[in-house]
């Protein structure tokens, strides 16, 4: 019996496509013929969280309209249309597949590099500590106030580079979801948030100084300080409510990250140890990661328990919203590793030299492997460190 697969019942076609776990396979599936194309939705709803891509730094030699991404799953460079790419822009967040881009204006923009959809967040001038903004005050366009009432001024570039440390999202803004954006402010250690549709940012006063990292976990924002204590923030009501969970100081690392996984109950803390390294060639000093340690919260304590293995999970940390993924769906990726990129703006300002600090840390033996895609560049840019992005249509 000659099998005519274009006449396959729709449910069988849908079942096959539901078993495709990688977005690229799904896109190719929809390109086979008219019948297949119309039998499965344009935007898949069943895909598991995808392995992230590494957005490579903008280089002037590249075509201005495209940006290179290293696809960890396929171990290949992908070029995406990205006309917004510019060395004058800074990416200070990567969450649920959306990048948060700042430039030399007050605009705060979310962009999905895969779908090219853009969402505007309230501009920098709407943060409560920004008193005023004026383009004509060249070099000191912003006036900000300190807790003690003093006023100081910042330029467009200073605001772009050092006002915000990182922004994370509670969910993808696609489809006009009720997402919440949370920003960690660099200079003051404040946390501020805005909900979809808000016209300004709101501070979470009681969570000040819990500014190492923030994660969205079970409808709450968890923010951590240098010692591992947590501020649990509920911003769902009319005003934010914060409860503090103090933990004993257990870490020696320089940077802390929080990570969780969609299906996991666990909250993880990753601490990153840096060392100052001499570059004997140019006599520059810069930071290099030497190791990571991973801890899991034990709510009875509460305290952080050291994990010696992540099992088949792998973490992706850096300037992005930390990712924790099971590698069983992704044979190209080893489990029990931490894929990391450059991420220290407070350290970076003085030490803008040297290679990017990125690689793969293996928990099994503490070794660090270079990332397969990355090529040394002698022109490091503060604004362009590579960053992990989840392809999320």
């Amino acid at each position: 019996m000659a099998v005519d697969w274009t006449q396959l019942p729709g449910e069988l076609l849908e079942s096959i496509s539901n078993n495709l776990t990688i977005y690229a396979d799904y896109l190719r599936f929809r390109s086979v013929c008219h019948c297949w194309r119309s039998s499965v939705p344009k935007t898949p709803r069943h895909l598991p969280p995808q392995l992230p891509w590494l957005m490579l730094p903008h280089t002037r030699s590249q075509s201005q309209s495209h940006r290179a991404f290293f696809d960890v799953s396929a171990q290949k460079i992908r070029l995406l249309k990205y006309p917004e790419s510019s060395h004058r822009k800074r990416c200070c967040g990567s969450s649920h597949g959306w990048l948060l881009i700042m430039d030399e204006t007050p605009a705060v923009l979310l962009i999905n590099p895969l779908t090219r959809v853009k969402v505007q967040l309230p501009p920098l001038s709407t943060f409560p500590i920004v008193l005023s903004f004026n383009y004509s005050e060249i070099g000191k366009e912003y006036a900000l106030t300190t807790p003690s009432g003093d006023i100081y001024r910042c330029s467009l570039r200073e605001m772009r580079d050092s006002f915000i440390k990182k922004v994370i999202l509670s969910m993808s803004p696609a489809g006009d979801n009720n997402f919440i954006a949370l920003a960690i402010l660099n200079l003051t250690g404040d946390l501020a948030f805005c909900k979809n549709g808000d016209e300004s940012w709101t501070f979470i006063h009681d969570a000040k100084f819990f500014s190492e990292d923030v994660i969205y976990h079970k409808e709450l924002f968890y923010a951590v300080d240098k010692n591992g204590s947590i501020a649990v923030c509920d911003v769902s009501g009319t005003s934010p409510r914060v409860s503090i969970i103090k933990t004993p100081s257990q870490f020696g690392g320089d940077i802390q990250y929080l990570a969780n996984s969609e299906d996991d109950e666990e909250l993880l803390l990753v601490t990153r140890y840096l060392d100052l390294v001499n570059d004997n060639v140019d006599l520059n000093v810069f930071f290099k990661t030497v190791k990571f340690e991973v801890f899991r919260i034990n709510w009875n304590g509460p305290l952080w328990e050291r994990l010696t293995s992540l099992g088949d999970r792998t973490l992706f940390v850096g300037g992005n919203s930390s990712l924790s993924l099971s590698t069983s769906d992704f044979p190209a990726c080893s489990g029990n590793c931490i894929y990391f990129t450059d991420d220290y703006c407070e350290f970076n300002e003085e030490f803008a030299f040297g290679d990017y600090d990125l690689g793969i840390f293996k928990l099994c033996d503490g070794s660090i492997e270079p990332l397969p895609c990355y090529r040394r560049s002698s022109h490091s840019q503060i604004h362009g460190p590579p960053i992990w992005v989840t392809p999320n249509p």
Partner: protein
Amino acid sequence: MADDGVNTKVEAVSKATTETIELRTEDGGVFDVDKPVAMEFLILKSFYEDEGRVFDKTSIRLPNVKQLELSKVIEYCTRALEFGAKSAAAAGDKDAERMVRQEREGFEAEFVDELSNEMLKELILAVNFLDIKEMLDFLIRSVANRIRNRSVAYVRQFFDIENDFTPQEEDQIHQENAWAFEGVDAD
């Protein structure tokens, strides 16, 4: 696999008290199938149970199924029932459960490895017709694995499908997500 061999195998599994059903394929194959295995075919189950028919030893013709496929189906379903029973017996004992799971995974990997692309396709249609959910899920997963990271041309060839897009339509599809069409495994 000669169907004599399968018949013998099926009969050896059945105990004296197990009833069997006779199934005839469209290409003249005759199979005596244990009732528990046959009842995994929902098309048969509903024929007997839902329709309230008395279970007797009439021969049933399966017009859309060939011998080779039916023997494979019987093989899979028989083992699936065995694994089900082992799993139930191991319940509560994590090590035993894991062993059963691994054994099953080993069997399934071997089972699907031996199937050519053509056979896999034929089986899917047969199993879809017989309405055997668990086996269908398994075969669908296997097909998805076989087209993973493959070019569109490969997928079309695998399923014997003609490209019915116009050049302009194909161009537009490629433009939307050019990156997805590069870097696939060589055909």
